[in-house]
Structures are given as structure tokens and as C-alpha cells.
């Protein structure tokens, strides 16, 4: 089963953003989809562009780098270093938006919790300040490309159908 629009975003403190979402799959697979480059490539850009680079060195101290070419031609790049990895359970990583490389990076903690074959993912972003946190929240607007969404949603649905 797939669901849509069920991710929730809350702001537990002035410097945090918490994203929560349930998936109808065991956490082993959710963790795999979160950490295998060829799988990340297929979902991380959402409907807002295409991934051009997905590099993942999945070990503590290892680096990841995602580059997306957004619809409209501009590049959006992020990278970070893994601080903590508990396979299938927990990822702690820094996150740097390369357009704003100065300043303290965000620290993301992703936890995967399984119950009855379903997995809850919680992504907690710890930002250095309220200003940066607010900027991250506002960034959703810059890349909003509403007119693309219907078309791309159909493609996503077609991916979900058994071949």
C-alpha cells in the first residue's frame, strides 16, 4: 500500500525540524532504500528534478554527497559525514547545503522503527539557529513546481504497479 501526503513536519524546538512518516515495508528495506545509491537516486529529488550524483560511503566518518538538477536547470547539492550508523535502526549524519557552505552544518538523526511489518521513519534535523531552521523550512517554496506534480505523480504510481 502506498499513501500520499502523510508526512508530518513539526518543530519541537526553535532549532529543530522533525519529519515523520510511516511506510508499508519492513525497516530492513526502508533502510536499504535510504542508503543504497541506486535506490536513493530514484526518490530523493522528489518531483523537483533528477539526481545527477549520489555517492554514499556508508561507514562512520564516511561521506555522502547528493546532487540534484532541479527542474529549471539549477543544481542543488548536499553533502555530509556519517557520525553514527546502526544498520536498520539509526543514522546520524551532518548535512551541508553546498550553496551555503559556511557556518555550522545541520545534524540529522534518522531512526527506523518497525511494528507489524510497517516502519516509522523519524528524521530530526538539528539546525545551528532558529534563522537557519526557518530558512530550511522556507526552502520548500523556492523549488515548488506545482505544474509538474500531476505528471510526475503518475510516473510514481506507475513505478508502484507490479511489472
Amino acid at each position, binding site marked *: 500500500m502506498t499513501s500520499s501526503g502523510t508526512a508530518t513536519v513539526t518543530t519541537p524546538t526553535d532549532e529543530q525540524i522533525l519529519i515523520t512518516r510511516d511506510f508499508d515495508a519492513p525497516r530492513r528495506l526502508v533502510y536499504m532504500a535510504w542508503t543504497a545509491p541506486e535506490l536513493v537516486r530514484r526518490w530523493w529529488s522528489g518531483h523537483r528534478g533528477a539526481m545527477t550524483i549520489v555517492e554514499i560511503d556508508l561507514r562512520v566518518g564516511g561521506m555522502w554527497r547528493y546532487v540534484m538538477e532541479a527542474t529549471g536547470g539549477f543544481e542543488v547539492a548536499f553533502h555530509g559525514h556519517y557520525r553514527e550508523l546502526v544498520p536498520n535502526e539509526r543514522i546520524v549524519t551532518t548535512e551541508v547545503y553546498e550553496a551555503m557552505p559556511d557556518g555550522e552544518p545541520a545534524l540529522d538523526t534518522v531512526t527506523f522503527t518497525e511494528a507489524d511489518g510497517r516502519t516509522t521513519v523519524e528524521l530530526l534535523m538539528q539546525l545551528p539557529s*532558529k534563522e537557519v531552521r526557518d530558512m530550511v523550512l*522556507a526552502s*520548500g*517554496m523556492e523549488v515548488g513546481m506545482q505544474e509538474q*506534480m500531476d505528471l510526475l*505523480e503518475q510516473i*510514481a504510481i506507475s*513505478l508502484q504497479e507490479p511489472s
Partner: protein
Amino acid sequence: MMAGIARTATTADAFNAVAEPRRRQLLEVLAGGERPVNDLVEMVGLAQPQVSKHLRVLREVGAVDVREDGRRRLYRLNGHALKPIHDWVKDFERTWSERFELLDGVLDELTKAEQGDEDGDE
């Protein structure tokens, strides 16, 4: 005078109005229903002048409305004024929802592939 103008400029939007923890607390209390100032003073544990100051900021952006009831002043929440904040967070939420819808598709395929392996068919 200049200071007054500057202060108004920085406080007169919903985002600044809710940036202050005490003002968020006042909004949370008012979300439960209309309240006289005295109740608010008691519930947030600040002196009346400070509560009044925060309420003034909230009134400036329309986040609360006030009416006279005899000698009491009753405050209530006006959620509509906070909609810009809701919309703003919603857009970020939409970005992640898009990603997760695609991730659903990836997971669906992984699940099917595993089941296929186990069943030895498909």
C-alpha cells in the same frame, strides 16, 4: 519615535509574533477558548504588564482578538492570522511527501522482489 517604528516593523508579522516562547504559550492557552487577562496572567506565570505587552504584539498581527465584557477584557485566538506559518511549513512538508511517495514505490518493488525470491516464482 524611530525606535517605535522599527519595533513595529520587526514585530508586525505572524512569524515574529510566534518567535517568542511566551507568546506561543499564550496562543496555546487561547487555543482552548476565550480567556480574560487575569486567567492568562495566572496560566503563563508572568506579571500583568508583561502579559499585556505580549498580547499587544499578538493583537498587532491579528493573532488574537479582544472584546470588552463589562469590566473584563476577553481575549481569543484568531487562527486565520497564523495561516501564513501553517502554509509555510506545509510547503516543506509537501517536498518530503513527494520524496516519500517515490520511496513508497521503491519499497514496493523491493518487497515484491523479496517475495518473488522466496516463492521462487513471479
